[in-house]
């Protein structure tokens, strides 16, 4: 076995040192009737063979390098510069673990501190932690943090229906044993945050909204600031989930009163990877630091006064505080945070703004052209960023099957499950990766699928 270096002679010498005859003798504590089960697993493969098998599985998939993609809904296809993969492929980064020994982990620690700094700068907040698992668990952790800030005395959470449906599901999963009252998202997907305020009272620990919201729409900084003020009047916290690419261009939540900002930060240099690993960005105000969850890296000095970095404020965490910890999180998404840091460093001030501008212009070009098609209607009460809702003349599943089969296009997200009141509605996502030709093809295909000659009974998913 290539990964196990010890030879038979080594094993013999080691068994002698231990004082047993056979390696099986080391397992005498295990109940004899259950010892050494015959596992039914596929036979072992050499590297050459395993590559062949797994490559075949990979090639069965329709990969977005070969197809135009207008699917977003919480996972986004943005450009990743080559620098990013080079950084996260450094053995010293990716084969290390949590920096428990700071003297030999300054690389991870400084890179994480820089990630925290850039994440805070991007969101306009005071502090960001080292990461949560993804955008959904970051919202759940924000809700739990708000409950902890109020010392478990407030049990009500108001959450907007335009927060990503999965974030809302995960929040409910995480808190199912806590006896919370989560309200606000059972209505019809109202976009006006003022409607949520009617639900906010002195029992409310937090109000959770998303901006740009799940349907792509932007809420003005003034509207957000009014919301924040009203939430704060009730003594509750405002949690804002956001899109980090949008923050390259738009006013960040820290500038309009958010107390906790979360984001799915996969967009920052992390591939789509069929849904993970992703990155839960988590930023908050200074006064909440000691109630916060997740790892934090802090700056300090060494015995000679040189600047250095350590994991800090661990008394919040499970390995110290155990049952009273602010969260159970231990391993998080350090390498994904490193990718995000390298991405932000490489893109920089100019690059990120340009990426966001490209998304804006291309999405609006697409919406403008689709809105002119017969049978299609752009459903937007507010400005949007890179995603928008299109009401379609036919069920979205049928349209998407046509787009894929006839044009090699992966269409938008079908909203009929999550927002049935919108009818046959599709959430279309356009990023800097979509060329003008792709958008024009999409428009042409959407027009064609609404022609009388196109068969109505397409086999969905074929």
């Amino acid at each position, binding site marked *: 076995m290539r990964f196990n270096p010890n030879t038979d002679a080594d094993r013999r010498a080691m068994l002698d040192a231990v004082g047993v005859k056979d390696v099986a003798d080391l*397992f005498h504590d295990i109940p004899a009737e259950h010892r050494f089960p015959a596992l039914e697993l596929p036979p072992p493969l050499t590297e050459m063979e395993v590559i062949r098998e797994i490559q075949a599985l990979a090639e069965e998939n329709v990969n977005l390098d070969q197809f135009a993609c207008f699917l977003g809904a919480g996972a986004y296809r943005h450009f990743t510069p080559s620098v990013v993969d080079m950084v996260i492929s450094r053995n010293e980064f990716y084969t290390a673990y949590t920096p428990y020994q700071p003297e030999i982990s300054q690389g991870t620690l400084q890179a994480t501190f820089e990630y925290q700094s850039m994440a805070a700068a991007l969101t306009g907040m005071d502090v960001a932690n080292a990461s949560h698992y993804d955008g959904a668990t970051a919202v759940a952790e924000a809700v739990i943090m708000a409950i902890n800030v109020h010392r478990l005395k407030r049990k009500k959470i108001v959450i907007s229906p335009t927060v990503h449906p999965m974030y809302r599901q995960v929040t409910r999963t995480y808190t199912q044993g806590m006896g919370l009252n989560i309200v606000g998202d059972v209505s019809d997907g109202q976009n006006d945050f003022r409607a949520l305020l009617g639900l906010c009272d002195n029992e409310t620990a937090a109000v959770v909204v998303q901006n740009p919201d799940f349907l792509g729409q932007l809420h003005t900084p003034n509207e957000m600031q009014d919301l924040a003020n009203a939430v704060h009047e009730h003594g509750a916290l405002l949690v804002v989930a956001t899109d980090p690419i949008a923050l390259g261009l738009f006013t960040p939540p820290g500038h309009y009163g958010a107390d906790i900002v979360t984001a799915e930060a996969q967009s920052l240099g992390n591939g789509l990877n069929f*849904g993970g690993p992703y990155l839960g960005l988590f930023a908050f105000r200074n006064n909440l630091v000691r109630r916060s969850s997740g790892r934090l890296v802090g700056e300090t000095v060494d015995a000679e006064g040189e600047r250095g970095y350590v994991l800090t404020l661990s008394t919040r965490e499970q390995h110290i505080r155990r049952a009273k910890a602010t969260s159970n999180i231990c391993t998080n998404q*350090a390498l994904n945070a490193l990718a995000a840091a390298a991405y932000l460093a490489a893109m920089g001030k100019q690059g990120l703004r340009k990426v966001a501008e490209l998304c804006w212009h291309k999405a609006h070009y697409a919406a403008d052209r689709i809105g002119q098609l017969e049978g299609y209607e752009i459903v937007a009460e507010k400005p949007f960023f890179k995603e928008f809702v299109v009401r379609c003349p036919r069920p979205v599943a049928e349209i998407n099957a046509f787009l894929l089969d006839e044009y090699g296009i992966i269409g938008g997200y079908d909203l009929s499950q999550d927002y049935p009141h919108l009818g046959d509605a599709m959430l279309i996502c356009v990023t800097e990766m979509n060329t003008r030709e792709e958008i024009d093809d999409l428009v042409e295909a959407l027009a064609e699928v609404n022609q009388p000659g196109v068969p109505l009974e397409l086999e969905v998913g074929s």
Partner: protein
Amino acid sequence: MSEPFIYELGEPGRHGVDVPDVDVPETPIPAEFVREELPLPELSEADVVRHYVHLSQKNYAVDVGFYPLGSCTMKYNPKVNERMARLPGFVNLHPLQDPATVQGAMQLMYELQAMLAEIAGFDAVTLQPSAGAHGELTGVLIMRKAQIARGQGHRTKILVPDSAHGTNPATTTMSGLRVVELPSDKNGNVDLEALKRELDDDLVGLMITNPSTLGLFEQHIVEICELVHQAGGLVYGDGANLNAIMGIVRPGDLGIDVMHFNLHKTFSTPHGGGGPGSGPVGVTAELAPFLPGPIVDVDENGEYIWKWPEQSIGRVRSFHGNFGVIVRAYTYIRMHGAEGLRRVSEDAVLNANYMQARLQARGDYPIPYGHRTCMHEFVAQGKISGAAGVHALDVAKRLIDYGFHPPTMYFPLIVHEALMIEPTETESKETLDAFIEALTRIAEEARTDPDLLHTAPHLAPVRRLDEVRAARRPILTRTPPAHRATK
């Protein structure tokens, strides 16, 4: 030499990526939305590369040397794993694509679910949890919901041995349940009498790490599971230490009802400096309906489909799990097969016992449970006879000067001055011998020149860091204005 903070590098006007120009008619951006400043660094591509290469050089890692960090299973990470995880047919898949367009990826997940179930003796597996603690939360929520389904929703108590990872009690609290800690007996097993006293109508279940964090196999595990079951409880297995028992024993066969796997420990996926991990959860048939959804199933036509278990606790994260990590673990299992995995565990346990026996023979460091055969790790104490002022911390820091990553320190909490050593199976006898030699020399130094230890490390990129200062006056971010001002 210290590497500048990233905002101290570069110059205004620089950028590391050229972004294409707009190729469509422009739409005005309403001014009221636009942010005034975007305080990000301004570096060229080469600036970025050199910065991160410099930082990487300040890190210790498995690919640099021996990393016997107890309970973390820092084994070598095969490079083919990385190659497989970067295949375009995996990287460039959107999680919400039509299942018909991602059958290869779903097949891989389905097969991994089945292989993990087989390895640990369970009936169903979810791959959704992102880390061990996330798997624990999933498992405890499943236990809670199963008790409600049995009409036992009044139960609130979870038993956790005092040797457990902090994640066990923290998870219990997050799940809205309460923890009662169980003491260990003199052999490192769960104190059975203490357990029996807690078996009442309030019991949700027991969380047990087996092999334990003392590196010991629980000698009464079958009896413990039976007792808990008789009291109407369920048994959660913390799979952190599965590396000791693959092909040796299946937790499901012993009576464990639900268990998480750590793909980043047992199945060789890299630890990434603190993630991403992956914490799949396996359950018995009784608990399968409560798994988070969706999981991969296969329909009558042989097509892979997403399926929601009927009484699911709900999603524990967005999408399907840390797929990139899942691909790596799948690759590892396919390369090993049943025989190879058993060999992994045998070698991991042999390596640990060899180190324990040799250290014990030298006699410098007490090994409180050294009278027992250990599993894949063991716990020594940094209490050196004839060197009263020297602590586990000093030994650990001095090990850095010898070119090793120190063991886990001060854990488990029930062993004073603990040094928890897990060699893993991918280390050779020469490496283990060199580490024992280093520990022996450090013990000598502790007696003759204790200050050498108190001031260690001497050969690391920085000296001992002031952690108290970091916590008292936390500096958790620096942003450009402050730094620009000092430049």
